[in-house]
């Protein structure tokens, strides 16, 4: 048994040294990033019979069934979201160079908005049709929302901590914020953090549809997710996973790791305004963005890109735009903003993590992806939204926002390693 080694708390920098993702536009980070730069949509029509009677039949599903990418026995006891998390974790860990780390110094923080909803609902069908004796003994570990985190911790033998923040559509970003805290408190040297979600099933779709939160543009699925555009009419449910390997600067430098970007600061606030409606002035969101910059020791003048939460709902995009304008002030017109969800749809609990990856790559490469379907600007938005075609931008500091039902606001500040 290894003795627990306790490093002193440090206030130093946190480096992003590995990336892994499965998204509706790519089975890994490289294909996702290329697809986003090219403006490719992952949204399609749900054609299975079980969706036929729903008012909304649009979704952004991952390209390859994750079960096909895993060993059969390995896949059968994991919920789809756990499978996606496992694939993203393997990619991220390999991308980080498969570091040799004391298990007691590796933590895992993976959030999920809903957890294994599809397992829960499918097994309820089994119970009603075949009785309790036919229910899978794996139903509980497959449906619990900490399942993706636990799956990744088992895979990496991570023994420092395994945590699973649940904060709806902010879960992925919330996990990264918690990971930064763990590293700065000296509780781990390496944290694998992010989010996973796979709940495309008639019930969650019907629920979001009843809230009138979803786009109904069935005649043109690839145009359905259109953040900031004047014609937006709701978001598109997506699924996927995104995981980042985060390390203390000392640890990353000590092993000669590549640095994509620095996870420089996180701002986390709560609206306490309404269960699902955004606070209309965007005050809580703006506060989160300012806290992230403060934590990063960065000034608003250094901000060179904002990756918006930008789900494509009529009111949500306006509240976020207000928040961004209030933070950027006179620099609003000089800072490009883009919306990953215009192509991936809304990955719910995985969204903030995938968008943190995208933002890190934007900082690293000096390129920002377009906002697909941004055809007609909405006067109430009034931001420099990057339309069709990628843009080359040297970025010192970028912000990526995530908000969730329940009033959760998380903003992450990501800075160039240079």
């Amino acid at each position, binding site marked *: 048994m290894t003795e627990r080694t306790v490093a002193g708390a440090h206030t130093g920098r946190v480096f992003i040294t590995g990336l892994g993702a499965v998204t509706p536009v790519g089975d890994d980070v490289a294909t996702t990033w290329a697809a986003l730069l090219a403006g490719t949509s992952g949204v399609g029509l749900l054609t299975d019979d079980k969706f036929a009677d729903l008012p909304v039949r649009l979704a952004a599903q991952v390209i390859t069934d994750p079960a096909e990418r895993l*060993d059969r*026995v390995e896949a059968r006891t994991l919920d789809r979201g756990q499978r996606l998390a496992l694939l993203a974790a393997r990619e991220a860990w390999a991308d980080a160079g498969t570091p040799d780390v004391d298990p007691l110094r590796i933590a895992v923080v993976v959030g999920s908005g809903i957890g294994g909803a599809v397992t829960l609902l499918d097994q309820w069908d089994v119970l009603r049709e075949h009785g309790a004796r*036919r229910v*899978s003994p794996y139903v509980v570990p497959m449906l619990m929302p900490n399942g993706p985190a636990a799956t990744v911790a088992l895979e990496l033998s991570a023994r420092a901590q395994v945590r699973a923040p649940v904060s709806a559509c902010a879960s992925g970003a919330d996990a990264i914020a918690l990971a930064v805290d763990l590293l700065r408190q000296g509780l781990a040297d390496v944290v694998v953090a992010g989010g996973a979600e796979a709940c495309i099933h008639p019930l969650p779709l019907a629920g979001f549809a009843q809230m009138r939160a979803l786009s109904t543009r069935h005649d043109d699925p690839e145009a359905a997710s259109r953040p900031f555009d004047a014609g937006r009419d709701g978001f598109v449910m997506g699924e996927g996973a995104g995981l980042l390997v985060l390390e203390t600067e000392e640890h990353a430098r000590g092993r000669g790791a590549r640095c994509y970007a620095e996870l420089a600061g996180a701002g986390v606030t709560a609206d306490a305004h309404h269960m699902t409606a955004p606070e209309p002035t965007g005050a809580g969101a703006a506060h989160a963005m300012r806290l992230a910059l403060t934590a990063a020791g960065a000034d608003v003048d250094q901000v060179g890109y904002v990756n918006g939460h930008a789900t494509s709902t009529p009111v949500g995009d306006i509240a976020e735009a207000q928040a961004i304008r209030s933070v950027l002030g006179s620099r609003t017109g000089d800072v490009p903003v883009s919306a990953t969800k215009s192509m991936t749809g809304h990955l719910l609990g995985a969204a903030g993590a995938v968008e943190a990856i995208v933002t890190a790559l934007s900082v690293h490469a000096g390129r920002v992806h377009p906002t697909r379907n941004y055809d007609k600007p909405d006067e109430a938005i009034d931001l420099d939204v990057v339309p069709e075609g990628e843009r080359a931008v040297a970025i010192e500091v970028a912000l990526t926002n995530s908000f969730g039902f329940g009033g959760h606001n998380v903003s992450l500040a990501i800075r160039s390693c240079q």
Partner: protein
Amino acid sequence: MTDAELMTGLADIVNEITGIPTADVTPDVRFSDDLDVDSLSMVEIALAAEEKFGVRIPDSELVKLKTPGDAVAFIKKAGIPA
């Protein structure tokens, strides 16, 4: 159904659920200690065996089935039509 046929059928179930090669599922290996089959997988194996062989394996009996040989003997006794 002969013992050999029951053993083959059981080995297929164990392989389907755990990935353990059918050749390793021999009468005297222990599910837990030798094959590393956990308790949740044992529940699934029992459910699949119930379905395949048309028997009922109560929990009180399941815990006594330490080896594939025990399982075959139980299934036979529980009344597989010859």
